[in-house]
């Protein structure tokens, strides 16, 4: 079985199950899924960011991830003080560990940069999924976010395969083309408009079009940023394209950027 076919089959099995759990499960069930995904993503971030000698830093990133996501769970969209507090305290905690490390020996900013980044990426970004679920029509908004990412990826793949000529960013991601990127935008906007027509008719067509267009571009940026992050620590090799492979960050890289954007767009502009 080709990896491509296998991806379709896993998709066709996994997507309905996940969709059913999100649809029928309550907010707590959904939040548990998000928190598990957040911890997995954070663990993967740790592996790409730190050698085995940085056990404290790794643990700190995971604890901050839990803290920020729990804060999101116990917050409401109208009062995010708890999330802000969790982020701020986690950020401050990074400096304490930094001081401890500096006391031990050479002063190196790199671990501080990396722990501090992890509070935001992936932890705070993922926590927005918990927040989206809390908005009116939250379940459908979650579906919309997934759809924008999924339709964009799929359209990019086929547009790239059939029309791909100009390389988008060969030094970051060897396979991506400008044609694929344009196809991705078209795919996301089209899928979002169809979705709106049936499931979110209260939001105007214009809003959904603007939102899905911007979200798609952000999603593609998220994908490229994740590749760059991995590449910067020597973990990806240009030319090594293994379809169906890669960790959780590879799967959710675009969602990490799309989710927060959709959340704020809906909260501040639509609602």
């Amino acid at each position, binding site marked *: 079985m080709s990896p491509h076919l296998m991806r379709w089959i896993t998709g066709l099995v996994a997507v309905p199950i996940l969709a059913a759990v999100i649809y029928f499960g309550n907010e707590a069930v959904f939040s548990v899924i998000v928190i598990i995904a957040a911890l997995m993503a954070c663990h993967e971030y740790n592996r790409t960011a730190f050698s085995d000698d940085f056990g404290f830093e790794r643990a700190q990133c995971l604890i901050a991830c839990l803290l920020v996501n729990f804060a999101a769970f116990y917050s409401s969209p109208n009062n995010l003080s708890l999330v802000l507090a969790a982020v701020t305290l986690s950020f401050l905690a990074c400096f304490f560990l930094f001081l401890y490390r500096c006391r031990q020996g050479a002063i190196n900013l790199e671990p501080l940069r990396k722990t501090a980044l992890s509070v935001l990426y992936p932890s705070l970004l993922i926590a927005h999924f918990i927040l989206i679920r809390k908005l009116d029509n939250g379940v459908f908004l979650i579906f919309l976010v997934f759809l924008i990412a999924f339709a964009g990826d799929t359209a990019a793949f086929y547009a790239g395969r059939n029309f791909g000529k100009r390389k988008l960013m060969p030094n970051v991601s060897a396979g991506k083309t400008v044609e694929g990127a344009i196809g991705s935008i078209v795919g996301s906007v089209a899928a979002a408009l169809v979705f709106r027509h049936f499931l979110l008719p209260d939001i105007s067509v214009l809003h959904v079009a603007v939102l899905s267009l911007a979200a798609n571009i952000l999603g593609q940026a998220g994908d490229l940023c994740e590749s760059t992050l991995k590449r910067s*620590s*020597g973990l990806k090799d240009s030319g090594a394209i293994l379809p169906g492979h890669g960790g959780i960050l590879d799967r959710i890289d675009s969602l990490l950027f799309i989710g927060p954007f959709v959340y704020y767009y809906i909260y501040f502009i639509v609602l």
Partner: protein
Amino acid sequence: MSDLDNKSIPAHIAVIMDGNGRWAKQHALGRIAGHKKGVEAVRETVTACRELGVRYLTLYAFSSENWDRPAREVKSLMGLLEKFLKMELKTMLDRDIRLLAIGNCGTLPENVLKTLNEVISKTQGNSAMTLILALSYGGRDEILEAVRKIAREAAEGKIDPGDLNKEAFSDYLYTEGIPDPDLLIRTSGEHRISNFLLWQTAYTEFYFTDVLWPDFRKKDLIAAIRDYQGRERRFGKTSDQLLGDIP
């Protein structure tokens, strides 16, 4: 992009690629991540040398002493080497680059050796540049090996020790047929030869830079070549002799 004198580009550049481990440590990463990052610098250096018209590039990829490193690191270095060879074959064919290896290559793992030999034979007709990987290489070993061969041939009466000269001796080395390096670059601020090309570097110009190998880019290569071009290579003679004023 460079203000280099195209007429005096060194024909043969040799590089001691030092600093992967230090780079990794500075970035809170493991040594293996440093080596992976080092592969990027290799790729960029090969491309840049080809563009600049360097005819021979020798990279000290793995010394005979490197076998003593932790088993996990050795294993991943071998894996990286194999992956590099497989991935770069197309580039080497496209850009007319020939691959050679020097060193005690017989000690490499079987699969790596097989890939290496494949790439060497597939690129043997290329001529624009020769990329030479020093693998399981040691300069003293190389000289010893040559001496052993010569002694054996002398004992068998094939050669007369009296006839042996520098040129003839060179033919017994791994680098047979390859001109001596004009420029040797060592990264990462170390100032040692580390058992690299001991015989061949007799009149090589040395260039040291504090840049760690994974950070080494085309601009650093150009800086090294520019520095080299500013030097006067006398090969033991006086400046005036080189100018031809004094016979």
